[in-house]
């Protein structure tokens, strides 16, 4: 724990009566991006707000660089950079004015502020906009400024709450690139509800659902979890449900509209091949067959041990 950048220990938080998160434990020990994945309302923002000291937890501890956040909030917060869902900007300030303010708030020595502002701008690609008012920037650039303020004091931990939310596809790509770049020499905790974002940016993944941590592991381990186990077969006429059900490896069949079947199979077996062979042999008149990618909901359901409801 001593060398950990972040330790989240039995963290729970309760708004009025409802537990928003319950007994969450994880640790960040090295640089790279840790994705905090979860659907809307799962407890991602609550967790991040607590880690950044915006919210004080009901139970459990958070240590930043070994410093207890609750006991020594000011020392601990010197090692955190936080970009909330909505960038915390002062729209009537210029980028330079704003970043100077942020650097000061993070207790940077006055002599270093100018240099670090330049560096942060450079890293986030906003150096040529120094004198622009934040109000006049596009969403993507506002997000870059938001990231710049989070890294301006070179914190050990940068926390980004849904950083690509509301951006257009080009902007998303650029911000992801920026995040990867930042994570080269520090730990980044990033929350998202988009699976592809995790796959595109994260090295490690924590998944939260209904306030509980349901998965924690590397991207590879996570990918293992999302190996497909369903396929959709489309037929020209009425699907031969009974026959398909008898194919070796098929667990269950659900009939969908438009002469379609969803076929659940045991994923260790190459079921699609067998269904195609049987179709040819028995002239089922199958026109299309697709392996279904697991939906995030399905993964959540799976990881939290629940069946998905059709």
């Amino acid at each position, binding site marked *: 724990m001593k060398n950990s950048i972040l330790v989240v220990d039995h963290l729970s*938080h309760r708004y009025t009566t409802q537990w928003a998160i319950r007994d969450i434990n994880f640790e960040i020990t090295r640089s790279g991006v840790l994705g905090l994945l979860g659907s809307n309302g799962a407890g991602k923002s609550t967790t991040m*707000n607590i880690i*950044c*000291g*915006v*919210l*004080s*937890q*009901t139970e459990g501890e958070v240590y930043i660089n070994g410093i207890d956040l609750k006991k020594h*909030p*000011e*020392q601990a*917060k*010197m090692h*955190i950079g*936080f970009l*909330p*869902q*909505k*960038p*915390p*900007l*002062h*729209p*009537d*300030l*210029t980028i330079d*004015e704003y970043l100077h*303010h*942020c650097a*000061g*708030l*993070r*207790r940077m020595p006055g002599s270093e502020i100018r240099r670090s502002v330049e560096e942060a701008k450079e890293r986030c690609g906003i150096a040529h906009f120094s*004198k*622009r*008012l934040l109000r*006049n920037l596009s969403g993507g650039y506002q997000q870059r400024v938001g990231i710049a*303020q989070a890294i301006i004091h070179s914190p050990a931990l940068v926390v980004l709450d849904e950083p690509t939310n509301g951006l257009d596809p080009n902007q998303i790509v650029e911000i992801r690139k920026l995040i990867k770049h930042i994570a080269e020499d520090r730990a980044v905790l990033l929350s998202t509800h988009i699976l592809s974002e995790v796959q595109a940016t994260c090295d490690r993944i924590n998944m939260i659902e209904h306030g509980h941590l349901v998965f924690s592991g590397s991207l590879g381990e996570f990918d293992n979890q999302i190996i497909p186990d369903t396929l959709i077969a489309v037929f020209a006429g009425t699907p031969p449900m009974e026959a398909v059900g008898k194919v070796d490896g098929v667990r269950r069949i659900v009939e969908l509209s438009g002469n379609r079947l969803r076929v659940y199979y045991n994923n260790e077996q190459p079921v699609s091949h067998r269904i195609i062979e049987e179709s040819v042999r028995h002239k089922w008149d199958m026109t299309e067959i697709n392996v279904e990618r697991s939906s995030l909901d399905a993964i959540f359901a799976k990881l939290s041990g629940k069946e998905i409801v059709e």
Partner: protein
Amino acid sequence: MKQIWRIAKTEMQNLFFSPVAWVVLAIYAIQTGMAFLEPFGQALRHQVLEWQLWNVTSQLFGGGVFASVKQHIFIYLPLITMGLMSRETSSGSVKLLYSSPVTSGQIIMGKFLSMMIFALVMIGILFIYIGFAAVTVGNLQLPLILSGLLGLFLLICTYSAIGLLISCLISYQIAVALSTFAVFTALNYVGSIGQDIPFIRDITYWLSLSGRADGFLRGLIGSADTVYFLLVITMTLMLAVIKLRMVKHSLTRMTGWLSVAGVMVIAVMFGYVTSRPVMKVYADTTINKSQTITPVSREIMSKLDGGLTITTYVNLLDPAFSMSFAAPNQVMNDMRRFEQYVRFKPEIKMEYVYYYDQAVNMPVSSVPLREQAEKAAEAKRLRFSRFKTPEQIRDIIDLSHEGNVLVRRITRGNGASTSLRFFNDIQKVATEREISAALQILTGDAPVVAFFGGSMRDIYGLENKDINHLVAEHWNRTSMVNLGYVVESWDGLSPLPEKTEILFIVDLEEPLSDRALKNVSDFVESGGNLFISSDLASREAMRPVAALVDVQLTDGILLQSSPEDPSLIKAYITLPAMTMFPQLERISGGTVTMPGTHALAYDTTRFRVTDVLMTMMMQTGTWNRLRPYNRMEREVKYEETAGDQRGRFPVAIALEREINGRQQRIFVGGDTDWLSNGELRTSRNEIAQQVNIGVWSEIISWLGYGKLPLDVNRPIAPDRNVNYEYVNLGTLKVVFYGIIPALLLVGGLVIWIVRKRR
């Protein structure tokens, strides 16, 4: 501290990079400009008319600009304070603060510091007027101005702190502004709520913000008011910090509300303790100490050891005073009239007793008393049951000699008591002179005067011939009883009242008995001071008394040629009298009207004699007519052949001699009507300035060696002239209403537009 400053700096940037602050400042500049030029222009007008100016500093600032700022500031401030926290909350930028190494206290202090700076900017604008006044007003009272500025600064800071708290509570800016405005308005007017209920009265008075700056504006810095402002600021900021910590969940609901309760309880306790009279300290910044009772009064106070209770008896049915000055909802105002006395004697207790009874000044009515009282209570929305019945009040105190009108009884711990009254003039309430005079009576140092007279001139009588108005009338501010004399009657035979300083012998019907004359003679020879007032009818009876001081009451009647009443002598004040009584110089052009008087003659062997009043030297002159005079005579003329003697005649004289190591002072007058109720009530159109009362006042003051009336006059403040041409007032208007606000507005717009384009 660095963090606080950084937050304040960004707040100032947010404020001044948007046009709102500039527009507010421009409107503020116009408003203060008007509030300055109004009294400034008036001072210039008065100077053009050659009227004497006085207290120019106070009129321009304390009563002018500062009063206007005090009154209107709560309208602007919500526009400035509304964004302090709510802007951060609604935009989400508050998370930047929360996730940075700053404490909630630093956040609130930073925001508050920015408002303190804004308050200084507002104060700074006032320096335009102060600077201008420093150049144009002679002897400007700078300390007085600084006191006012301190009061305004504290007031603005207090409003700001409250605005900041509301900004923490609500995240929607317009809602914050409206709520803040509503709270400020409530705080401005709360002082008038529940004033008739003692407990509520204390609370609402305490909540009333703007009134707390009044003392500062008048030049009186009070510790209680200063502490009050600081306390409200501290309490409000602490509540704001608690609110932030509750938002962050670092305080649970339970601990949060407990903290709120704790802060409020401590604030109320501290506020209560520091507002106790004994804890209060004051600094009077006026050059002539006009906000502090004079040394004379302070010396009287120093002699009043032990408890002191001022009980005000308020009659529901008294139509003149009671309900205007001491109605239950007026109590706080009324108590303030004694604040400067309580300052020097914190143990003064003020009590109010409410009752109803027949008052001497009530219109005649056939409706039973109780019914009248019930109706009066209903009309004034007062609970009838709080008023004592006539029987109940009479059990406590007999107020019939005060006519059952509003009166205060001041009682010392040792039981001595005296009345302090309200007066039938414009001002109505007792000023320092009357209050201190009443208190002096309680010290036992008040001069005792004895009146010896027959039924001719009753000091308590209300008829025209009586002299009640000047001597014992309760509702006349200048009557001897209200000036602080202990007035006693004397029958001539019993021993004189103890410590009698002046003996008045007025218009005797019959000559004194030998024994009485001997008593008077003994008094004179012992060096006692004497007031002898004769008249045509009482001349014979008065002669033996006058003879005791070598004065002869001349035969005959003085007449002046006049189409109306030749026997109405218009006497004037002599030059030697003005030397002797310097105060008479002010009224030297006036006339003393004496209806029917005889002349005086005197011997100067034993006494130095000064003619005080003499008959006028007119073309036709004044003459002494020895023949009988009939008021109905058609044409009254000087007739030398008939024995009339023309000349200037003394009608009032002052005598002095050294005796028994002291200076004895005696006054003799040839008429008494000039002091009568009737003459003082008569308006004589042909007389430009009737100065009977002025001369009387000087004479009795002289007889008492100037001890009374109490000299509570202060030196006149020297800020009495303005060096500016009235014709150039228009230029000032252009500058103050136009150029300065326009500069602020343009400055703001330029900053805004230039930045907006970036």
